[in-house]
C-alpha cells in the first residue's frame, strides 16, 4: 500500500493516479514545451521570429493550434475503410503513451518499475508502425498508400539498429531495468574516476550515435521523413486526415520526439540522476528525497538537449531517398552496432 498525503490508496487508485500523472505531468508539458521550443528554434535558425502573438513570445501557440484544429471539419473520404481510418491515429498515440510508462523520473517517482523496461520500451515503440500502416492503407489515397508503405519499410529497418545500439547499454549496466540503468550510470565510474559517474554517452558513444540516428528515423524526421515527404507525397499517410485526427498525428509526432528523447537520456545521459559522488550517495536508498522533485526537471533538461539535437538535424538536412535509407540502415548502422556490441562485451569481460 502506498500512501498519498497520509491517505491509504488502493491499488486501482494508484494505477489511476499514475495514468493521470502520466498524462498531465509528463505528456502534456512534454508536448507543449517541445512544440514551442521547436517552433522558436526553427524560426531562429531560419532568420525569423516564429509564433509571437499567442501568449508572451508565442508560448501559448500550442493551445491556439489545438483550438484551431478542434474547430475543423472531421473529413473521412468516401472510399476510406472508416473504422481503421478512425483507429489509426489512436494507435499511433497509444505507442507514445505506453512508452512513457517505463521512464523513471526520480528514485521513487516512476510509473512502473519494470524489470525488462528496455525490452518493453523497444517493443511498444514499434506499435506506431501499425498505426501508420493502417492510416496509409485505409485512406484510399495513393499518396497515403505510398507514404504508409515507406513508413513501414523504414520503421522496420531502423528498429534493428536501435535494438542493437541498446544492447551495448544493457551489457554494460547488466540489467534491463531502466531505474537500475540510471543507478549504474550515476553511481558508476570511468577508469576509477567517479567525478561524472559513468554516463553511457561517453563509454557507449557509438551506441548513442546509432541510437539517435535510429530515433530520427523512427520519428520520421528529416533526413528520414520520406513517409511524410511533403514535396513528393503531399503529406504521406496523413494526407486525408483533418481536424482532431490530424491533430493527434501532429501533436503525437512532437510528443513522441519528447518521449524518445527521454528514453535516450535515461539510457545514455544518466536519466533523472546527477553523479552520485557529488552528494556522497552510493546506492538508490541513500539518494536524498528531494531528487523526486528535482529528478523530473533534470530529465526534462536532458530531454530538451536531445530534442534540440533531433530538431537541429531535422531543420538542416535534405531528405534521403528510400533506397539510400535502407542501404544506410543495413550496410552502415547494423554492422557498426554489431561491432559495438562485440567490443562492449569483450571490454566488459576484460575489466
Amino acid at each position, binding site marked *: 500500500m502506498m500512501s498519498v498525503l497520509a491517505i491509504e490508496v488502493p491499488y486501482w487508485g494508484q494505477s489511476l493516479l499514475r495514468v493521470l500523472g502520466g498524462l498531465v505531468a509528463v505528456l502534456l508539458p512534454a508536448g507543449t514545451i517541445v512544440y514551442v521550443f521547436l517552433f522558436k528554434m526553427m524560426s531562429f535558425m531560419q532568420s525569423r521570429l516564429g509564433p509571437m502573438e499567442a501568449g508572451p513570445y508565442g508560448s501559448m501557440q500550442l493551445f491556439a493550434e489545438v483550438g484551431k484544429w478542434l474547430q475543423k471539419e472531421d473529413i473521412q473520404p468516401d472510399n476510406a475503410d472508416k473504422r481503421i481510418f478512425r483507429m489509426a491515429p489512436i494507435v499511433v498515440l497509444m505507442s507514445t503513451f505506453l512508452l512513457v510508462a517505463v521512464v523513471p523520473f526520480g528514485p521513487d517517482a516512476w510509473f512502473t518499475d519494470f524489470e525488462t523496461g528496455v525490452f518493453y520500451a523497444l517493443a511498444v515503440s514499434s506499435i506506431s508502425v501499425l498505426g501508420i500502416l493502417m492510416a496509409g492503407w485505409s485512406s484510399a489515397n495513393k499518396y497515403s498508400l*505510398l507514404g504508409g508503405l515507406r513508413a513501414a519499410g523504414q520503421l522496420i529497418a531502423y528498429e534493428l539498429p536501435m535494438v542493437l545500439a541498446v544492447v551495448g547499454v544493457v551489457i554494460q549496466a547488466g540489467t534491463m531495468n531502466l531505474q537500475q540503468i540510471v543507478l549504474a550510470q550515476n553511481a558508476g565510474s570511468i577508469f576509477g574516476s567517479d567525478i561524472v559517474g559513468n554516463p553511457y554517452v561517453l563509454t557507449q558513444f557509438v551506441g548513442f550515435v546509432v541510437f539517435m540516428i535510429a530515433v530520427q528515423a523512427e520519428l520520421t524526421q528529416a533526413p528520414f521523413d520520406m513517409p511524410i515527404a511533403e*514535396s513528393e507525397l503531399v503529406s504521406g499517410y496523413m494526407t486525408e486526415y483533418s481536424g482532431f485526427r490530424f491533430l493527434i498525428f501532429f501533436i503525437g509526432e512532437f510528443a513522441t520526439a519528447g518521449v524518445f528523447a527521454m528514453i535516450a537520456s535515461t539510457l545514455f545521459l544518466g536519466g533523472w540522476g546527477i553523479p552520485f559522488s557529488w552528494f556522497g550517495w552510493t546506492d538508490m536508498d541513500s539518494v536524498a528525497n528531494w531528487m523526486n522533485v528535482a529528478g523530473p526537471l533534470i530529465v526534462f533538461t536532458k530531454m530538451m538537449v536531445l530534442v534540440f539535437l533531433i530538431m537541429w538535424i531535422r531543420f538542416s538536412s535534405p531528405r534521403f*531517398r*528510400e533506397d*539510400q535509407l535502407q542501404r544506410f540502415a543495413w550496410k552502415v548502422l547494423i554492422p557498426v552496432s554489431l561491432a559495438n556490441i562485440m567490443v562492449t562485451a569483450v571490454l566488459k569481460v576484460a575489466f
Partner: protein
Amino acid sequence: MTILNDPVNAKLGDRAQLSYIASQAADARLNVELETEGMTLNIGPQHPATHGTLRIIARLDGEQVLWAEPSCGYMHRGYEKLTEVRSFPQVTSLINRIDWLGSFANEVPFILAAENLMGVEAPPRAQWIRTILFELSRIANVSLFLGDLGVQLGAITPVFIAFRDREYVLNLIESATGGRFHPNFDRIGGLKDDLPAGWVDETKVVMKKLRNFCDEIEALLFGNEIFQSRTRGIGVIPRDVAMQYGLSGANLRASGVDWDLRRDQDSPMAWNKVDFKVWTHPDGDSFARCWVRLQETREATKIVDQLLDGIPAGPVMAKVPKIIKVPEGEAWVSTENPLGEMGYYVVSRGDSGPFRVKIRSASFNNISITPWLLRGVYVPDIITILASLYFILGDIDR
C-alpha cells in the same frame, strides 16, 4: 500501325494514341513479369511540388516510374490571343505575368521586337538600365529557385534565406520601377523613368549581399552530402538529347552546350559591353543544372556591378510618337531569360496593336523532355528532376 514506325512525324491525335499504346504495353509487361497491378499516380494539378498547376501522369510499379507524361494547360490564360486586342504599350502589362518571377525580363524581347518593326532604337542609357533590370530579375528568379530546391528535397531552411535575400532585389526593382513583381516599366523607345537618386550605390551593396547569399547556399545545400547523393547522376540529359528536345538556358548549358544568347547574339542590350563567363557543366544531371544556375546568379551580380559603373548619361526615352502605330511587318526577337530562351514573333498590320504574337517561352520546351527523362526513375527523383529542370507554370501555359 504506321505511326509506330515513325513516331516523330505522327500527327497529334496519333501521338496521343501512341502514348496510349505505350501505356497499355507497359501495363501488359508489368502484369506478365511481376503479376502485380501497376498504379497510375496523378502528380498534380494541385501538388506542392509543381508550384502551380502542372499535372504529371505517372505509371508506377511500386516506387518506380514506368512512363510519365506532363499534361499542361491548366493555367492557360490565352496571352497570345489577348495581345491581339491590346495596343502595343498595353501588351507589356500582360506579358509581365508569363514568367512571374523574372517579370521584367519578359517585357524586353517584346519591346525589342516592336522597336525593330518601328525602326526605333532606345538611347544607350535606357539600354544599360534595361540590362541591369533584366539581370536583377534574373537574380530574383534564380535565387528563389535556389531556395526552393531545398524544399523540394526536404530541407526547409534554405528557402527562408532565399526569400530574405531576394527581398533586397525586389526592393531595388520596386524602387526603380514602382512594381515588385510586375514592373511594366519597359516602353517602346526606352524606359518609363530614369533611376531614382542613390539607386546605384544601393544596388552595389545589395549585389555584395547576393554574392554572400550564393556562398551561403553553396555551403548549406550544394556541399551537403545528402543533397549531392540525391542530385548527382539523377536525370542525366546527354548533350544530343538536350539539343534535340530544344532545351535552352541553364538546362542546356548543364548538358555541356556552350550557348548563351546574351553573348552569342547581336543585341542592342548592353551585354556586349561587359565581361562575363558563360558557365557550362559536362555532367547534364540534376546537380549540374542546379550548379550552373548558382554560378549564373553569381555572374549576374558581376554583370550588374560592371554595368553600374558605366551607365552613360543622356535621356532614357527616344523620340517616339504619342500614339504608337507599328508599321506592317514581322519580327522575331529572343533573349536569354532566367528560364532559357524566350522569344516573341510579332506580326503587325500597321495598327496600334499586334496582329498576331507567338510567344516562345522557355519552360514549355524545357518540360517537353520529361517523358524521356522520367522513365525508370523513382518517385522522389521525379521531384528532384522537376525541381532541377526549373519551370514556372505561367511560362509553360502562358
